[in-house]
């Protein structure tokens, strides 16, 4: 097997990784200027709120968080995977240099926060001070997102959400058509089986993951069977938003994130449902 090409970080010698090409990172940094980067960092981190300071000024670098992270444990205790290192190599450096970092640095930050942290909150549980490490990771994600440096597939899902309010570019007609098709399909086996669309006053509103009507049809089939067997008065929304996933939340694209949640809540209010059941 060929020896894989490695990259060594220019700023942090202990950060050694395999090359993993991604247009979203490699190409998008080409348009960045030092001014743009500095301006963005200052806009996001400029007003140092109590929440940011609570983490950055309380952390004593004890490293207890490292053993909480599956990335650190899975890579034979490589310290560059420790949660505290992820903060040190990104936000701390940005603040230390007062936002004067280059595009290559931003690319490395994006790789760390978008592909080496799952925002699983396990590190916060093992931190003796209970610091919200993932909040800091989220801030760095925000910086990278505003600069447009995000792995391509994640950015694509965010664009899908911004455009169609679901993560799989599914239009409203396709969504309705899929639901009706499934109603027919499963209804061939069961008496009076319905997938009620936009039923006002239903007890339960069920919201799938965007990928279910696109590639995971069997989930809809199973859900219809379960609801039918249990005799639930249920419905799915006929209008956007019906996708319960929220990629913009992970990217810290707050505008789109809020549109999705708002849309889900508006559907719930419009249909006067009692329970919102989400797959994600």
């Amino acid at each position: 097997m060929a020896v894989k090409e490695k990259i060594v970080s220019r700023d942090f010698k202990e950060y050694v990784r395999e090359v993993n090409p991604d247009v979203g990172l490699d190409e998008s940094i080409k348009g960045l200027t030092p001014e743009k980067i500095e301006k963005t960092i200052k806009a996001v981190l400029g007003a140092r709120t109590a929440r940011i300071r609570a983490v950055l000024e309380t952390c004593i670098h004890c490293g207890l968080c490292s053993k909480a992270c599956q990335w650190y444990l899975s890579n034979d205790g490589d310290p560059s995977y420790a949660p505290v290192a992820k903060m040190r190599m990104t936000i701390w450096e940005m603040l230390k240099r007062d936002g004067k970092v280059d595009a290559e640095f931003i690319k490395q930050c994006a790789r760390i926060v978008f592909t080496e942290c799952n925002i699983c909150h396990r590190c916060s549980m093992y931190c003796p001070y209970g610091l919200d490490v993932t909040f800091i990771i989220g801030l760095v994600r925000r910086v990278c997102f505003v600069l447009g440096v995000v792995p391509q597939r994640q950015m694509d899902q965010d664009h899908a959400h911004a455009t169609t309010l679901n993560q799989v570019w599914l239009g409203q007609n396709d969504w309705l058509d899929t639901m009706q098709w499934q109603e027919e399909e499963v209804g061939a086996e069961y008496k009076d089986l319905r997938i009620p669309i936009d039923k006002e006053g239903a007890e339960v509103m069920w919201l799938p993951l965007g990928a279910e009507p696109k590639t995971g049809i069997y989930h809809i089939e199973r859900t219809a069977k379960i609801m039918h067997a249990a005799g639930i008065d249920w419905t799915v929304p006929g209008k956007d938003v019906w996708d319960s996933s929220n990629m913009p939340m992970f990217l810290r694209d707050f505008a789109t994130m809020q549109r999705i949640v708002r849309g889900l809540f508006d559907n719930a209010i419009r249909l006067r449902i009692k329970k919102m059941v989400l797959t994600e």
Partner: protein
Amino acid sequence: MLGYKELPFEIMQTGEFYYDLMKSGRIKIVRKIKDPVTLQDPCNIIRRAGASEKFRYFVNATCENFTEMTPNKEHNFCCNAGGGLAGLSNWAAHKARGNRVKAQQIKETGAKVVITPCHNCSTGIKDVIKYWDLGVKNVFFDEILVQTMDIPETLKVGK
């Protein structure tokens, strides 16, 4: 945040909903999965929303042979597809390498089936199983329920 002080409806994940259905007797379990199973705890639903006992009730009611991963519940490890990493298919090997502990956890349980209540976990666990060649199956919550629940004959066409 969105202008509602108190929401006029409940919000729950499907796993919690299934728990309610079983607990209230609206769904009856008539069969049990015989294969040895284990359960992947989804970070956000367990660690942040506290549904761990409900999921255990679900698995114990539907499966005969359930072994916990260690650590579990609030101390579980992420599937490595959370936090928006699920869609990163061009980073799949990088992600699976970064979750060797999950592969070991699954191996140690000796289970043949890993039950996942969350779609992100499903993606992550599939990647881990494939990369580390674990030879186990990943099954979603709804599939377990459809296989084990009672569907009254009177509901079927032609009966």
